[in-house]
């Protein structure tokens, strides 16, 4: 790898580690100092390596520079010494050197503790995802803005407010106690789930970026799996769900970036290794007495890895949706449940149920009605597709619906 490739690569893998460790040293209220020191380290790398060449062990070089910069910062910054050092947990005595521990273990622990801090219940979910992307995944503001289809300023403001909130609430960077772990894990899993979904369903045209988001969500989830106290059934279920979904990544979009619907996907593009991993973790997740929505969603995703339209498949998908909706309602689950109902119990029953949903602001609702009426009452089918077209927001959705209308 030459320098032009190496620095962005190291930035992606090491920035987040240094930031997490330094945040842990300084405390959540000085999150910016940690970010700045990590950024400066990479600036030094660019400057030095350009003239002197790449060192033998670039990562070790980066860590050494990060440590030095941090120590210098602590000793030289007068304000810091006066106002902040007393707040540092393991405050060093005069002349005693502060230890910056960049060992693998401390990096992993710091990242996990930061994950819990960021996913604190007082922080809005949107801000949690943004912070996780910035602090734990090392994404640039540009990338976050592109993933959310927002402006840079919007993301900056959102992150700024979230950091303020963390400061205000004095959120500690630590593992939650054993009694608390389930309560605190809940928002962490929800954020990881949403981070994954953001990548999976994002309208962003940047395929690599979207896949990165999914990989990062999976990487953070595996951190939880490798840590014994958080290696819990619902974490395994969430990981299983992510494996099943990402197994279809390559098959979901064509070269133009248009969504290929499930029934039209080329199965040979499904990633078998990820499917098997999903099955493995789904099995592991069922060894306990916990049934989370991730278990149910992973179960649904499992049945979708079987392409053949069998009665057994759709009956299982229907029953899993019935349970999912009892645990947690969402319009998407209600629509998918009704589709499964049409496959398991027939279109007539599904139409009756669909008409009751009245999700009249949702274009997918009218797409579903259009699909259900097709072949039963084509006039009504067309009417519904037209209603869907009027509500659809993205170009891709509009195209897909227009094709349905033209097919009559």
């Amino acid at each position, binding site marked *: 790898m030459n320098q032009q490739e190496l620095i962005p690569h190291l930035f992606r893998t090491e920035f987040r580690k240094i930031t997490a460790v330094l945040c842990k040293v300084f405390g959540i209220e000085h999150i910016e100092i940690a970010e700045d020191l990590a950024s400066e380290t990479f600036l030094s790398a660019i400057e030095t390596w350009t003239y002197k060449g790449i060192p033998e062990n670039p990562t070790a070089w980066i860590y050494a520079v990060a440590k030095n910069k941090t120590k210098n910062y602590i000793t030289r910054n007068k304000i810091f010494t006066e106002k902040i050092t007393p707040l540092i947990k393991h405050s060093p005595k005069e002349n005693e050197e502060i230890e910056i521990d960049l060992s693998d273990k401390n990096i992993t622990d710091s990242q996990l503790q930061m994950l819990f801090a960021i996913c604190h219940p007082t922080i809005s979910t949107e801000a949690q995802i943004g912070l996780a992307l910035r602090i734990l995944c090392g994404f640039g503001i540009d990338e976050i803005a592109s993933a959310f289809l927002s402006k840079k300023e919007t993301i900056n403001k959102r992150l700024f407010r979230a950091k303020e909130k963390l400061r205000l609430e004095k959120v500690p960077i630590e593992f939650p106690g054993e009694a608390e772990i389930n309560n605190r894990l809940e928002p962490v899993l929800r954020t990881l789930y949403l981070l994954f979904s953001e990548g999976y369903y994002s309208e962003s045209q940047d395929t690599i970026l979207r896949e990165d988001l999914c990989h990062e969500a999976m990487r953070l989830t595996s951190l939880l799996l490798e840590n014994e106290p958080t290696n819990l059934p619902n974490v395994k279920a969430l990981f299983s769900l992510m494996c099943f979904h990402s197994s279809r990544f390559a098959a979901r979009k064509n070269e133009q970036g248009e969504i290929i619907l499930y029934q039209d996907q080329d199965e040979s593009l499904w990633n078998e290794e990820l499917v098997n991993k999903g099955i493995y973790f789904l099995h592991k997740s069922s060894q306990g007495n916990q049934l989370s929505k991730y278990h149910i969603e992973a179960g649904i995703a499992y049945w979708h890895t079987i392409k053949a339209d069998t009665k057994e498949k759709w009956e299982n998908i*229907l029953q899993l949706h*019935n349970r999912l*909706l*009892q645990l947690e*309602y969402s319009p998407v689950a*209600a629509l998918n*449940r*009704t589709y499964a109902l049409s496959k398991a119990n027939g279109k007539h029953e599904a139409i009756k*149920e669909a008409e009751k*949903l009245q999700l009249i602001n949702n274009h997918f609702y009218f797409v579903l009605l259009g699909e259900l009426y097709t072949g039963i009452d084509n006039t009504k089918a067309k009417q519904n597709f037209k209603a869907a077209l009027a509500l659809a927001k993205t170009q891709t959705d509009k195209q897909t619906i227009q094709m349905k209308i033209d097919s009559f």
Partner: protein
Amino acid sequence: MDEYALIMRHEDGGKIASPEQMQAWMKQTMDWIGGIAAQNKFVGGTGLPFDNAKVVWHNSVVTNGPFGEIKETIGGFITVKAESVEEAVEFAKGCPVLQGEGNSVEVRKIAKNDGGH
């Protein structure tokens, strides 16, 4: 929006159903509940199995099961959200228990903790 309990009553709970019948009945019940949940109107509920059922009477007399002296038994209940008792009645009409002649679903409004009841 109020909450209503839909209480499923069987005329003769002692009747033994075949495993196939039980399975078909389970599916219908799950589809019925799923349909209510898909409208975001499901609150909670449970089946009430007859195994090990006891009845406690005046003077601490305990008898086995609700069967025998009482012909009618309660098979379970669910709680739903509804704008009116009429809407709750519409939900109840879909209950598969009603396929059995003599069975019924009782619709009862749940008392709110607002001192009004």
